[in-house]
């Protein structure tokens, strides 16, 4: 479903070019659960943004289901975001003006889900993430970890086909982290394609494949065997 060939991404700083991603070649099949790892600044978030079509590569080609992404228009991209792709941001990115409940509900609104169904879906997720009590609070009234939970809840509520999660458990207590990873595993089993970024070796084991980035290069790309 995802096919990257010779992707490059760089920033110009005066005359100086700094590469963030270099010569990335990558294929992801539907139903895979891929973990991306690497030191800070190695380009993980940048890669995820490109995969999520929020950002464009400076060079190379990105085929999504055999179609060139750079040819997609705004409308097509909006459609994909609406129905196909879910995001968990490293910096949470909740809407400050909306309550927890409303933040989680937003993707459903854009999808045109009926009010009754929305209510039950949101209630379900709130319950599962154990944040029912917080549902009427605004983001700035939550702790960092709680905001992260809301961010994850928002990403998965619409059951996207492709989930891009940037350090979804970075700020969470171990047991909460495990809960999230169990959830991801279950979603994966149900057929969701997942790409996650993490620094946590244990979390990486939930996936089926690990990609290691360093200085913008792919250093390693190998499947995870259950006994490894």
């Amino acid at each position: 479903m995802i096919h990257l060939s010779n992707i490059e991404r760089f920033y110009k700083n005066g005359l100086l070019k700094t590469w963030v991603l270099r010569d990335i070649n990558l294929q992801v099949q539907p139903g895979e659960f891929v973990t991306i790892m690497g030191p800070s600044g190695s380009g993980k978030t940048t890669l995820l943004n490109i995969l999520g079509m929020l950002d464009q590569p400076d060079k190379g080609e990105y085929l999504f289901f055999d179609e060139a992404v750079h040819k997609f228009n705004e409308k097509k991209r909006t459609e994909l975001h609406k129905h196909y792709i879910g995001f968990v941001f490293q910096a949470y990115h909740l809407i400050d003006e909306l309550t927890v409940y409303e933040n989680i509900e937003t993707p459903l609104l854009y999808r045109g889900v009926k009010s009754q169904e929305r209510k039950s879906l949101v209630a379900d997720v709130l319950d599962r993430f154990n944040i029912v009590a917080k549902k009427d609070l605004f983001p700035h009234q939550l702790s960092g970890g709680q905001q992260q939970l809301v961010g994850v809840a928002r990403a998965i509520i619409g059951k996207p086909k492709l989930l891009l999660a940037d350090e979804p458990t970075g700020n969470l207590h171990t047991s909460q982290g495990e809960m999230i990873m169990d959830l991801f595993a279950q979603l994966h089993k149900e057929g969701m394609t997942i790409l996650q970024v993490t620094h946590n070796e244990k979390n990486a084991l939930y996936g089926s494949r690990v990609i290691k980035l360093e200085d913008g290069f792919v250093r390693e790309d190998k499947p995870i065997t259950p006994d490894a």
Partner: protein
Amino acid sequence: MFSNYLKITLRTLLKQRVHSMINLLGLALGLACTSIIVLWIKRELSMNQFHEHKAELFRVLEHQTYDDAVFTFAATPGPLAEKLKADFPEITHASRVSWGERSLLAYGRESFYQEGRSVEPDFLEMFTFPLLQGNQETALSNPNNILITRELADKYFGGEDPMGKVMRLDDEADYEVAGVLADIPENSTLKFDFLLPLDNYLKQDESLNSWNNNSIQCYFRVRPGVEAGAITEKIKKIVAENGQENVALLAHPLSDWYLRSRFQDGKLQGGRIDSVRLFGIIAVFILLIACINFMNLSTAKSANRAMEVGVRKVSGATRGLLAGQFLSESLIMSALAGLLGIALAAVALPYFNRLFELELAISSAGPGFWLGMGAAIVITGLVAGSYPAFFLSGFQPVKVLKGLVRKSGGAVQLRKALVTAQFAISVLLIIGALVIYRQIQFIKNKNLGYDKENLLYVPVNGALWDKYETVKTELMQMPGILSVSSTNGQVHQWGNNTSNVSWEGKDPEQAILFQTIPVGYGFVKTIGASLKAGRDFSPEFPADSTNFLINETAARLMGMDEPVGQTISLWEETGRIVGLLRDFHVGSFHQAQDPVIMILRPWKNFIYIRLKPGDGLSGLLASMEMVFRKHNPAYPFEYHFTDREYEELHRNEQRTGELAKVFAFLAIFVSCLGLFGLASFMAEQRTKEIGIRKVLGASVGGITRLLTMDFLKLALIAIFIASPLAYYLMNKWLQGFAFRIGIPWWVFALAGLITALVAILTVGFQSVKAALANPVRALRSE
């Protein structure tokens, strides 16, 4: 300290260019309007103020009471002036003053129409119209003296000394120049080119000796310290005691002549002062809108300056000191805007002057103007800066560091209220402009009951009095002329009325004022009025010289169902009604439909000529001129078109309409400026939200709608607030017209639509821009 503030202000100005431009331009436009309006108000208030004895000068007005109404006139009986002076010790001077007659004044080969007034010797001691040459004591004592203004002296005599020269008036009487008056100031309501002693004027009109006729103006001067109310009480009944029982006199003080001279039912209803107030309020409105822009943008951008406030506070600045800093900033801004505004005003003044036929100029404005503008600038600066100063200086360093300032709900609410106020003012001005425009169109197009198009009139003078029949015959032979008739006044502004009418069954107590129109043969046809029953006057019926035509209103007031054939009497002369006219207008639209009685008389002050519609007008006018010049060689050919003169009557409203349009546009423009700035700021502040929403699947259209709706809601609230207010105010304005439009609902809808559209366009542009922005960049900025 101040130079530090100035430096920071200028730096902020340059750093936030769009924001600063909006503030500066808005305030400058507001102040430009203010400076023009201040100039104009100053001029209006200066009317007649040049008279040295201004506090002691009065004009006599008559309130005449009739059955259904009280009418107020400036005409008084001839003997009044002398009686006032003789009977009341506090009245030191009095003079009758004629209405201002246009006459042909000639010296040698120079011959022009000029306006003169006939006055009594006291005139020169009452009013400050100084003599540059001649003796004030004796100048008006010889009936054949004439006093001319310096302008006239230059025109007729060039460099020569005018004193003692003999000028010929209307080709029949000679006058000797006995004085040269300083030119009449532009701000005088009493206007004239020359003055004559009253003697010859008195000889021409017998009725001036009677207490029962009101036909001349009377002015008087009192001893210092005498109040208008007190002197009115004393003189009130004089005319009533001398025969006209329905008349009460009023001493109208000089300061009111120009500004407060509209009376309705015997009560003062205002006058020009209303316009002065109206435009004063509009200036304040526009300034207010500009101030709101300033407040909104400053508080909105406050987050950017939160750090500065925090740091300054930590380093020991008190709240007062900080407020002082922000106030100085807004004062500096408003001073800059003031300079720019005055420059803008200087550019716009020629347009304004043309529209109002004024000669306002900033260069000759005088200290009053600069004082007024200084005050406006300082007040604007303080108003605009007050809230930001209060708001910004209140930041607490701890909260600033936590980044909590953005969530200050109070400021957001206030900003919304202010934007709503701006919208409301704009809606108010749009509705006002629309209603005024429609009323003017209504007046222009209303069926007057006669046909004012292609209707020409020629004032009768010189030899025309005797040669009317010949001229008429020759004119009638021209193919472009349909009919010719005569009358003794102008139809579009008739003002010759009497209550001396009686009919069978009249209640002797009843007093109704009838317009009486003396006409020649063929008048009804010439002006294009129509007969409902009976016939027009005709030479075939010799008895018509004592017969009458009346209009429908007159018939109704006299209680006649079948008026034709009935007998009535006018001025004690009895005759028969031979025709019933459909109602037609004899005046401006401020007057109600009057009852009219037409009589057949050879009193022909004006010749009315009905032209055939179509072109060839200039050729026709040329051949008409030949006829008039042939029979009346001493006078130039002068003619007027009734439709144009009629429009002239409503010139004031037309100008008000023009101005309302300009100001409504300006108000909206300045509001838009602010809105534009605010919207760009809001979009900027919501980039993160927009980015997230896009990632979650929101479309560009959806985001644009989201941002625009916020403002649209405010616009809707404004429409609901402004509409009833506008309805009330415009209804009040319309009350001044006897014939007026209703205010249809769609005026409000249209005003609302315009406002909403403008809001959508202004905000929409920013919103689309925000919606199209790359979400990664927005999200990265966190």
